[in-house]
């Protein structure tokens, strides 16, 4: 818990990577990445699989050595002592499926030398059940409580809300924001682009590099998409798709990411499709698609 007058003694940066690279043989998994997470910040790490997110996280936690560059966790090179002040929820949740809820918490608390935390009402009802028998939403809640039991100063969450419904997702984000308001720095990965708005700042990785950062609006920048409204959506979709345009269906409309409106109009007119073609701001997925399709810069 951070008191206002303790704020000055907090390290200014909780997680830091300074021009970090990592290679595996001939493959570069992380290429010259610089980033930081400060106290009270919720930072979202986005990118396709294989973009380098997990490799970056493993280096930040000290689980993997860097090939080039330095990382810091809580002001120093990550080691076992510093990792005790970290809360980590991996994608696989890191729970013992053949232990009960209560046993899992007792075990984690003991490992960190903390007191087993209090359970939420919904978890109290199932305290003696095996984790393997719980619905995914409760398993995710439990993984959070276990990771927070020792009052960590940094939280690293790898797809914390995957697979749960909107209300359970909202409850998990409540917990994340509560931690941030206490001064905890949070680094979170997600594949759900609706969650970009939950983060104070986003880091977007593509092909081992950090290609964009900032707010959702910063990342989308001036990228536009083309919205095509027509009664013949199926034909519009088919002709644009055949013409190699990055086309998507949106309800009964068709969208084309990163295209030229006049070019789209010409393709449709040549095929005899009547349509209303307008430029609209791109979504963050469309921006990611454009970045992923972009040829390697020299």
């Amino acid at each position, binding site marked *: 818990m951070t008191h206002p007058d303790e704020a000055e003694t907090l390290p200014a940066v909780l997680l830091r990577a300074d021009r970090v690279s990592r290679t595996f043989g001939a493959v570069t998994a992380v290429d010259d990445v610089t980033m930081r997470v400060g106290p009270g910040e919720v930072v979202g790490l*986005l*990118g*396709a*699989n*294989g*973009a380098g997110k997990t490799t970056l996280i493993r280096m930040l936690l000290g689980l993997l050595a860097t090939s080039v560059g330095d990382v810091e966790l809580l002001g120093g090179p990550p080691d076992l002592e510093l990792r005790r002040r970290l809360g980590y929820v991996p994608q696989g949740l890191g729970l013992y499926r053949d232990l009960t809820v209560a046993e899992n918490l007792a075990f984690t608390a003991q490992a960190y030398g903390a007191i087993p935390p209090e359970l939420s009402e919904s978890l109290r009802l199932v305290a003696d059940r095996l984790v393997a028998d719980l*619905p*995914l*939403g409760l398993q995710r809640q439990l993984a959070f409580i276990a990771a927070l039991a020792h009052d960590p100063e940094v939280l690293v969450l790898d797809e914390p809300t*995957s*697979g*749960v*419904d*909107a*209300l*359970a*997702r*909202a409850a998990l*984000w*409540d917990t994340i*924001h509560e931690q941030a308001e206490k001064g905890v720095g949070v680094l979170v990965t997600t*594949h*759900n*682009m*609706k969650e970009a*708005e*939950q*983060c*104070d700042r986003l880091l977007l990785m593509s092909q081992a590099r950090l290609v964009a950062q900032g707010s959702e609006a910063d990342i989308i920048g001036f990228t536009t998409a083309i919205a095509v409204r027509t009664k013949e*959506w*199926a*034909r519009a*979709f*088919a002709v644009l*798709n055949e013409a190699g345009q990055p*086309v*998507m*269906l*949106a*309800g*009964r409309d068709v969208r084309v990411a990163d295209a030229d409106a006049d070019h789209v109009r010409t393709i449709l007119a040549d095929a005899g499709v009547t349509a209303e073609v307008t430029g609209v701001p791109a979504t963050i*997925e*469309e921006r*990611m*698609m454009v970045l*992923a399709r972009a040829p390697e810069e020299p």
Partner: protein
Amino acid sequence: MTYAVRHASVRFSGTLALDDVSLQVEPGSVVAVVGGDGAGKTTLLRSLVGKVQLEQGEVDAPPPEAIGYLPATAGSWLSLSVAQNMDFVGGIYGLSGEALVSRRDELLERAALGHTVDRLASQLSGGMRRKLGFSMAMLHDPPLLVLDEPSTGIDPVSRVDLWRLVSEAAAAGAAVVMSTTYLDEAERAASLLALEGGRTLASGTLQDVLDSFVGAITRTTTPHRRAWAWRRGREYHEYWPTTVDVPIDSVAVTPDLEDVVITMSMLKRHDSELAS
């Protein structure tokens, strides 16, 4: 031909897994079934493809050979190559020789899997494996395509690819039903069905669902009633039963699908707590 599940109830060892749920899909369109783990999505999709016995209700679906079904788990044999997976399923549907090879290659090309034909399915990434499963379900060009969470756990860029494949199938005339945990995929479908605990939360086009919302949503940094508020970034959104209830210091917002689904879940839970 419209395919449908009407007023379906399904019980597994005494527990109601589906409670009076209806779903309808037209040729040339995509219907998204959205909900979390345990909402009843898989049971509903399995009812449509005839793999689950209904306690009540009825199903209008084509015969099994006219359905392409991608289950939530598996979908391909890991120890077979990509080509072998396709050929095996093709054989089941009576495809062989030149016809099978050309259909197989066309589908793999469209899914950007053309370069992987000799690779074992176990060596594909999660996203590639789901695209392989999709291609297998599409081999016999079925009029009804039923996809159980084709995009769960795969990254946003692969998801865009998969959505394009789904759109292509619908543009070519297939009726497509897909389940998802992502609300943005539900927004992109022609219509959606939101499920929770085996029951319907909302259904219709995106506009129908947004229009069905009763009450008001406000945005605030300090919610008046914490139990009826949820985070949207650093701010909260808060639900009010009628516009008259909205305090003067609050700013009303136009609810989006996330607001509507969260509110309907909260109301449903509130009702069932009152009832018990």
